[in-house]
């Protein structure tokens, strides 16, 4: 009641004719709201810097990731090795840049898997009117209640070797981790898409499309999905952050990438036994993961303000 007072006043305001016909675009409006979230803006800069350096720095800093130099073992940062070296004297900056590519690629691919699977399942559940919807939602809730990490570990344990033999050690592990991390994170997107579908399904423009004889698939693609986009983008952002943590957790447990593919988590795993003599080795990958996840989380928060205005307080 109290909170509704200003809201109702502004509602009338938007209903009132405006003196100046202002150009109104939902995306421009979203950008205006996003811009107001200062931490999200800063995070966009930080994340861009991380992504750009991971993508382009290797062209500038071309030290090989596996050049072993026993004379320079476990050295701290120096002009020759800005991030120091590991126990084999390998250059950590190169390894970090390489690892960043791996970690970000895994996270992005896993997010795509999660969103695609989630959107499909959510869309089916949202469109169907019979038993399919509830059954799919039961399955979604079931997957939500499964402990993700033990299941991840179980799947990796069972499928690791056969995938390695088919796609090679690098490709096999990559595909496995992407599928498993993405495949166990589709549930939030599915729920979101379904909820959007249920609320949008009855809205007038969909009714209008239905009255005009639009086929189901056409309804979904033309009318409902674009409207469900905002919350899904927010969920996708959260998924990228979660996938980075999942991948680095697996690698940190020694069950992700092998040592010759140094993802950030793997570097941290190798470094953890040298904490006392070479703390820099663990700090760089740890801080990189932390900064990446933190900036993605802030961006997600900013996007939520921008794209999901109902949630704004």
């Amino acid at each position, binding site marked *: 009641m109290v909170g509704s007072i200003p809201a109702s006043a502004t509602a009338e305001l938007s209903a009132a004719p405006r003196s100046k016909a202002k150009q109104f675009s939902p995306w421009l409006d979203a950008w205006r709201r996003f811009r107001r979230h200062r931490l999200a803006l800063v995070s966009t800069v930080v994340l861009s810097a991380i992504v750009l350096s991971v993508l382009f720095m290797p062209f500038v800093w071309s030290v090989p990731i596996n050049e072993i130099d026993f004379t320079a073992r476990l050295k701290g940062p120096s002009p020759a090795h800005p991030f120091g070296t590991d126990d084999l004297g390998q250059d950590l900056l190169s390894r970090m840049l390489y690892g960043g590519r791996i970690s970000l690629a895994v996270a992005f691919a896993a997010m795509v898997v999660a969103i695609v699977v989630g959107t499909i399942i959510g869309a089916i559940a949202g469109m169907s009117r019979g038993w399919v919807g509830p059954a799919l939602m039961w399955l979604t809730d079931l997957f*939500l209640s499964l402990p993700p990490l033990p299941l991840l570990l179980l799947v990796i344990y069972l499928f690791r070797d056969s995938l390695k033999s088919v796609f090679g050690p690098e490709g096999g592990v990559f595909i496995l981790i992407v599928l498993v991390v993405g495949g166990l994170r589709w549930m939030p997107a599915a729920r979101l898409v379904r909820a959007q579908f249920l609320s949008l399904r009855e809205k007038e423009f969909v009714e209008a499309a239905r009255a005009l004889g639009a086929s189901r698939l056409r309804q979904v693609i033309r009318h409902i999905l674009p409207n469900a986009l905002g919350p899904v983008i927010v969920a996708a952002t959260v998924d990228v952050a979660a996938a980075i943590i999942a991948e680095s957790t697996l690698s940190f447990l020694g069950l992700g990438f092998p040592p010759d593919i140094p993802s950030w988590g793997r570097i941290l795993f190798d470094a953890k036994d040298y904490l006392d003599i070479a703390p820099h080795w663990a700090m760089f990958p740890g801080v990189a993961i932390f900064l990446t996840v933190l900036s993605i*989380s802030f961006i997600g928060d900013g996007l939520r303000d921008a794209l999901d205005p109902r949630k704004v307080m």
Partner: protein
Amino acid sequence: MGQYLLKRLLIAIPSILGISVILFTVLALAPGDPFEELATNPNVPAEVREMLRQKFGLDDPVAIRYFRWLAAMAQGDFGFSFASRIDVGDLIMQRLPTTLIIIGLAQLIALAIALPVGVYAATRPYSIFDQIASTFAFVGFSLPPFFTGLLLILVFSIQFDWLPFVYRADIEATGWRWFWEHVRQAIMPVSVLALFLAASLTRYVRSSVLDVIRLDYVTTARAKGLGERVVITKHVVRNALIPVVTLVFLQLPALFGGAIVTEQIFRIPGIGSLLISSILANDTPVVMAVTFVSAILVVLFNLIADILYGWLDPRISYG
């Protein structure tokens, strides 16, 4: 209330069955014979392998294998650990209490931090306190537990040498000394998990309180002249807690993940480290059993959450 309880119980049964189907499907889909590896494992005598092959009836149709496996699991017969050479059930019972204690302590500490901070932040939205709390929450859930763990070890074990970084089950001391040593070695692992939990919980408490604080009945309570303190504790927090309780229990699956990592870092003998060591030792019965038990625990905790939910919200239990 009784009817509600019965309904929740009946819903939990298909959940457990569903989980068992998913786990078994994963196992059945796994390429090759999961016991093949054992042939090269010198720890496993040939007769044990043969016995297992027969027990799992690997050549039978899938449905029969599933029901046999389910029946064994239901009886608590998880098989025999190749690596430790004891019953998997016994092994899990040895390891489970440590994990539950660590998780439980972490959850309590997280609540003790998140409740007051979240409520205070929500009563003063966008204040300096709220902004600081919110930033800390973001930092908290962006710090992966494995990195927090290493940071704590770096600071408190290596730098200051205050706390031990290897967890020992066999402390040679008695009385207070024994208790103190246990507390000291639990501080870091529990803090790692508590920080991780408290971060998301704080945000959740804050938004839950904000949702409630603008409801009409809060205005009614204010209009009664009860005083802001009573209004907040009695009419806002009490209602905002209902979804929070659910979240606390729904967070448990994620918490198991955190526990696995933490146990691995601090070498705590819980079921998380058991899972990792069994995977590294290709000890399939243990891997399956640990996954199954943690999934069952999650269903169990969900059931507890439902019961608490019904207890906290009279609309459900009296409806």
